[in-house]
């Protein structure tokens, strides 16, 4: 019974996967609308079930752990997946392999869930791979486009390489400590060269997934080549899951290596913020633009995590909530425009507000939130990150972060300016958006505004992260 209760999130996903497989086998030419309808209903059910409370504890002798913050993260990821699924309806209808797409997506999600709950290094590694390999296949879903295949290849090769490094790190850790269990490891780990080496390699593996500079090179190419919904999934869901795992690893498992990871976070966050910004300024393609902007956002999150424990974790998880809503809203608009008009460049967004005010306003609010302009949630998210970062008393890092936020304003506003102020003869005509897209965008907007205005969200996350 414990098993079912504690693992209900994962079991639900497995259940959906089985249903999809059976349906696919028994398929006799159902329409794509039918598929999408069924799957979205399943995802909604999944989402509701995920938000129900879960008991905390361990299973299988500590291999699987259920803890409050992780469960919150899982619910958040399910919600995000549902939103992405809703806004990609139009793209999916054109795509021939809906069942396969969702099978891959849900497998990835399952991998992330296990990764969040993993209790030892082996479980962690396996689930990380489960969450990566199907993702590479998803990147290839723009079946007719060469770029899409290229993106998939780049992702799978790069992540294979980073997995190598990570595995090496795991072996070092195992070799040094003789255990793979996180609980035991957290007691044994010391500041000796071997442990540090193992830890740094593991750290790099995770940093690779988070697109932290200088392990970020795959990001832009993959984001650009993959279909928009996949890009959204990659940049939002996959990153959010990694952040939760990351803060768990740093604070819970490698707490005694605090000095080394504080240094790593310190240096890498500065490099990441600056590089992300510098590249984002130059981008013309909206997807690449968001890719680099999300690299910058990761830099901010690193600043937050480097703060003291409860505050650092709370602020970064809170930021994930904000980031999730804002980015999904932005990607929703981009996907709609790319799908209907095939345009992806910033200059083609000129005059968008004229014919498509809803899309333009959604985009604007999402970008305001990403840029951190009050009263959107992004503002509060950044304030909390900076506050957490400042709790160590190092104002240099905070100053750099704040300066980067100012620079970032420039390129976010550039898009807004293009949409609202620039004239364009050949602006995008009126696009008719389907109901699912509108619902998804509306939920994101409400999320952006509500998360910002209501203190309870932050306080709730704070109570959750005290356990970590």
């Amino acid at each position, binding site marked *: 019974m414990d098993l079912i209760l504690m693992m209900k999130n994962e079991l639900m996903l497995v259940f959906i996967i089985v249903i999809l497989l059976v349906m696919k086998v028994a398929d006799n030419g159902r329409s794509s609308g039918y598929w999408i309808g069924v799957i979205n209903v399943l995802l909604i059910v999944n989402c509701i079930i995920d938000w129900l409370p879960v008991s905390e504890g361990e299973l299988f002798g500590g291999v699987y752990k259920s803890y409050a913050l992780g469960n919150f993260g899982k619910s958040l990821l399910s919600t995000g997946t549902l939103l992405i699924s809703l806004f990609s309806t139009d793209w999916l209808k054109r795509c021939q392999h809906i069942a396969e797409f969702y099978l891959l997506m849900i497998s990835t999600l399952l991998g992330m869930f296990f990764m969040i709950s993993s209790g030892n290094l082996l479980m962690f590694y396996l689930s990380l791979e489960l969450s990566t390999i199907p993702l590479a296949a998803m990147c290839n879903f723009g079946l007719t486009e060469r770029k899409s295949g290229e993106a998939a290849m780049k992702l799978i090769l790069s992540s294979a*390489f980073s997995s190598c*490094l990570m595995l090496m790190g795991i072996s070092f850790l195992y070799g040094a400590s003789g255990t793979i269990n996180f609980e035991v490891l957290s007691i044994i780990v010391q500041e000796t*060269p071997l442990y*540090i080496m193992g830890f740094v390699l593991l750290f790099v593996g995770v940093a690779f997934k988070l697109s932290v500079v*200088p392990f970020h*090179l795959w990001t832009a190419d993959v984001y650009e080549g993959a279909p928009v919904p996949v890009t959204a999934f990659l940049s939002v869901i996959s990153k959010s899951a990694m952040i939760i795992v990351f803060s768990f690893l740093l604070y819970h498992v490698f707490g005694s290596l605090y000095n*080394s990871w504080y240094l*790593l976070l310190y240096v890498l966050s500065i490099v990441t913020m600056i590089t992300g910004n*510098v590249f984002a*300024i130059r981008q013309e393609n909206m997807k690449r633009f968001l890719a680099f902007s999300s690299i910058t956002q990761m830099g901010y999150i690193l600043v937050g995590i480097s703060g003291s424990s409860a505050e650092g974790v709370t602020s970064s998880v809170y930021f994930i909530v904000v980031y999730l809503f804002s980015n999904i809203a932005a990607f929703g608009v981009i996907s709609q425009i790319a799908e209907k008009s095939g345009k992806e460049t910033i200059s083609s967004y000129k005059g968008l507000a004229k014919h498509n005010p809803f899309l333009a306003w959604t985009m604007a609010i999402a970008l305001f939130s990403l840029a951190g302009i009050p009263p959107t949630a992004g503002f509060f998210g950044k304030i909390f990150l900076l506050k957490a970062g400042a709790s160590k008393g190092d104002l240099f890092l905070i100053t750099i972060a704040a300066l980067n936020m100012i620079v970032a304003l420039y390129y976010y506003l550039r898009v807004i300016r293009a949409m609202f102020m620039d004239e364009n003869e050949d602006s995008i005509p009126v696009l008719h958006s389907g109901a699912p897209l509108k619902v998804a965008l509306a939920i994101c907007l409400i999320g952006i505004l509500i998360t910002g205005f209501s203190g309870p969200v932050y306080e709730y996350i704070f109570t959750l992260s005290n356990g970590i």
Partner: protein
Amino acid sequence: MSPLILILLLPFLSFVISGLWGRKYLKNLAGILSTTTVLASFVISVTTAYRYFFVDGKVAGKFVAQYPVDFKWLEFTPDLSIHLGILIDPISVMMLLVVTFISLMVHIYSLGYMKGEERYATYYSFLSLFTFSMLGLVVATNIFQTYIFWELVGVSSFLLIGFYYSKPSAVAASKKAFIVTRFADLGFLAGILILSYYSGSLEFKDIIARYTDSSSPHLQAAISSSFLGVSALSWGLVLVFIGGAGKSAMFPLHVWLPDAMEGPTPVSALIHAATMVVAGVYLVARLFPVYAISCPAALHVVAVVGVFSSAFAALIACTQTDIKRVLAYSTMSQIGFMMFALGVSGYGGEAGLGYMASMFHLFTHAIFKALLFLCAGTVIHFVHSNEIKDMGGLKKSLPITHIAFLLACLAISGIPPFSGFFSKEEILTAAYHHDKLIFWVAVVTAGLTSFYMFRLFFSIFYRGEENTHAQSHHGEGTSSMLAPQIILAFGSVLAGLIPFGKFVTSDGVGLEAHTDWNFSLLPIALSSTGILFAIYFFMKDNDKAEVLASKFGSVYISLKRKLYIDEIYEFVTKRIIFNLIAQPAAWFDKNIVDGFINTIGKATQVFSLTTSVWQSGKVQAYSAWLLAGTLVVLIMCLYYLQLL
């Protein structure tokens, strides 16, 4: 929630409705809507006033403040939070009455005056916004709320002065008003910060309590810390007064008021005569205990600035030829009376006569000055000009306006038994007992007042023949324009009979004011002389005035040019500030700041071009960089921990 909140909410609602949907859907209904809401506010204010003054306001023979609404808005720390609320005490109730009453009159008047105006609904939404802001200012429980509504009042004044936005002069005037008062508000803000910093609170009741108790640590701190040899408390109070002086058009911040007459005339009646411009007086009155008990020096500043502005404006008013400008300067002069009345007052008992007189004059002035403006509006409506040379002999065409204007002139001149007599009388008494110099300046100014007011009166209604081709076909205007004038005329005659001292005094205890006829003789005589001079010069068509003016030559011209204050401002702003501050600042901004930013931009581009080698698109290269990065990070880490 107390129903009092409706006084504020109704005008706000009307602002939102006519602002958003007025032009499209409501059209002429916007006027009715706004007028109805103001009427409702007025009725609630009257019942509030009745309840407060006659039923439950007194505790042990003394009027005490009530807080029917007190909502905690922003909490910074448990000790420091900003509230929004409603404060009911004698002066706020009095102001509620004045604001809602005059606003109602102006709303009704505008129904006729603004008829046919294309942006009719917009006009009414602005009026409602103003009424809302002014009421919010009046009932503020704390100095921060005052500041918020203070700025809102400034904004609505800006919008209304610039209502005829196609007229360049109106746009310039609205900008001028906004900038000058904003400039003064800077002082106000600094004053707020100083006062609240040392008192540790933004609430009026705390500020007053802490600064008037001589044993309180807050007061000691505020007195003992000084800047440029002046104590922090004096700085705070003087800076707050500067804010008030900006809104109330005290010298030398008065330059915006005459220009503000570019707005529609009913607006001038409401904002620039009766309500907004007395906000400064109200502000000083609100903090009066602090001024009077703890910082007489600051109060002295108030007195001097007040009496100087009063005399200064009266002199200029004698030479102006634009009917509304004369009224504007007379407003400035009368506000000067209110200010110095506060300045010569003490706290409590008989010594508080000046305070009571000031509030009384505020009250009566609001009525007769609003009436003067509404009459002026009718005249302008009739002859389509602001210049008195285009008027003359209008007695026959505008009989009701003629009588109303006469009554208002008698009231402002302080002729018994009209309302202005009583309030001015008490101001002069207070000044006499406090400072003889101020008293004599004030008496002469009072004489000048009657001279320039009757100059205006005779020039409009008597002198010369009616200019027939300038007159229009619509006569004296609609009944909606006449009714407010008649009501206000009754008010101007009767308002002085109210035993004001029983209700509004500095300490809440009633004060019996008695008119000493022996004392009154001199001011009445001077005022009458002023009227006689006006009759002599302006009743009939003659050139006596021009002869006199030419005799005074340069004095007359410099007065007519408003003592060159505008020119001085222009010199200071254009020559000194532009050349010495603005241009170097602009150069600095263009070359240093922009240059710095541009350099960063260029550096960024160069940097991203060079680093784009990274982004080559080759997976092998990516992996190599990944490995290199890992090694660097690893070595860095080991080195940092001194393990290497």
